[in-house]
């Protein structure tokens, strides 16, 4: 059912765990649907310096979040925003049709975390001004 890559990241996820004092946090999904992803970002010079995730959900949700964090690591924010769920699916070696929504959550999770970072930046800039 799942590709080898999905199983590998599900069994031994990379970038898993909570981050202390992140620069941005995004949480998407809800427990009703059985999927929640929380993405933590550390940003340095508009680049993603570190990233981690916590996920409640199925194997493909866990693998998708692990994969997307691995993909955005080191990218500029704009580069990270350009990552689509299709890129995640491709990097995972495919997902079953009914699991594609997990990759969408991953895309949205990154976007939400970046959005959070930016709104915090705006707040800081405003505070300085």
């Amino acid at each position: 059912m799942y590709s080898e890559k999905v199983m590998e990241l599900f069994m031994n996820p990379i970038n898993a765990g909570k981050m202390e004092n992140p620069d941005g946090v995004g949480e998407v999904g809800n427990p009703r649907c059985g999927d929640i992803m929380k993405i933590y970002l550390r940003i340095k010079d508009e680049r993603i310096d570190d990233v981690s995730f916590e996920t409640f959900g199925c194997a493909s949700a866990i693998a998708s979040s692990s994969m997307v964090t691995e993909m955005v690591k080191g990218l500029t924010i704009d580069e990270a925003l350009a990552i689509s769920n299709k890129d995640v699916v491709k990097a995972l070696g495919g997902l079953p049709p009914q699991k594609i929504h997990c990759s969408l959550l991953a895309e949205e999770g990154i976007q939400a975390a970046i959005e959070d970072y930016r709104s915090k930046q705006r707040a800081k800039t405003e505070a300085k001004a």
Partner: protein
Amino acid sequence: MTERHVYMDHSATTAVDGAVLEAMLPYFSDRYGNPNSLHLWGREARKGVNAARDQVASLLGAESSEIIFTGGGSEADNLAIKGFTFTHREKGRHVITTAVEHHAVLDSFKWLKKEGFEITILPVDETGMVRISDLEGAMREDTILVSMMFANNEVGTIQPVAGAAKICRDRGVAFHVDGVQAVGHIPVDVRELGIDMLTMSAHKMYGPKGVGVLYVRNGVKLEPIVHGGGQEHGLRSGTENTAGIVGFGAAAELAARRLADGSIKEEVRLRDLLIDSVTTSIEDVFLTGHRTKRLPFHASISVGSLEGESMLLRLDAAGIGASSGSACTSGSLEPSYVLLAMGLSHEAAHGSLRLTLGKDTSEEDIVYVAENLKRVVTGLRALSPLWKNRG
């Protein structure tokens, strides 16, 4: 890869028992005749089918003429429900079932609705049990059929079948029981209970897949759903699945022996060992379904802050086969309607895990499963934003 393999999904299906397979084998390439043929090959096959019919009837306390072999449990459910209502539709158009039935029953009822029947679906309490008073209250002048499962496949809860049967009998309403999970595992006597129709499936009791039985009490009239050559008293046409039927017979005999020899008691002991060890050794885990009125081989739990599929796959990696009512295991978006009907939250339903024991499950297996489940839960909770949020 893991060394140990522990199959804990006997509610989904069971392995064909060695003696059962042995009984079946001659019917593939030796006694391969069509039981409807007059010649030696046909007579041999007929003999096998007849003996199997006797074996199944004997397990249920029924007469052989009341046993209809079908192509599985789902087909038997469909035959009972559609076949009965089709024949008796002029007598009334109201039918009753419960919220926790198998899809084979629920979807047959949905089909009846499309065909102009009114359907009442009884709720269940938090243990998954139907309240007899609800059944009484739902009965109408034009009610012609009640269908209720003997025991639930997801949470193992045993329904008050005898009480329901009495209510139906008193009102002259036909009573169908989906006994797929129960028959062969707990004593079921159709006469004693006063059941009109009862569904069985061989592969849930160490027989082969693809063969079911509908017990139809003598005198109950049905329209077949498979018309044709008139086999099975005209209620299920088609060349008989002789090997499968013979296997069902052997499985029925095996079940009768296990019901008599105390095996079930040992199964209950191991089940309770499993329930006790996981609910005490792992935080935030609770049993679903009834604590005592449950199938002897059935343990079902809900694990907080986790989703079922992820547990299944990590257990699978440890060689353990289990199942879950999480939406992620079914391709639908909603988790198990059974768990929701019992009042579980969506989150709790997503975290459901079913561990169903078999006749060959050992105490070491239980220990292995409990240990691995604890490890898996701990590992996944480390990833779960829900778990940490609470911590």
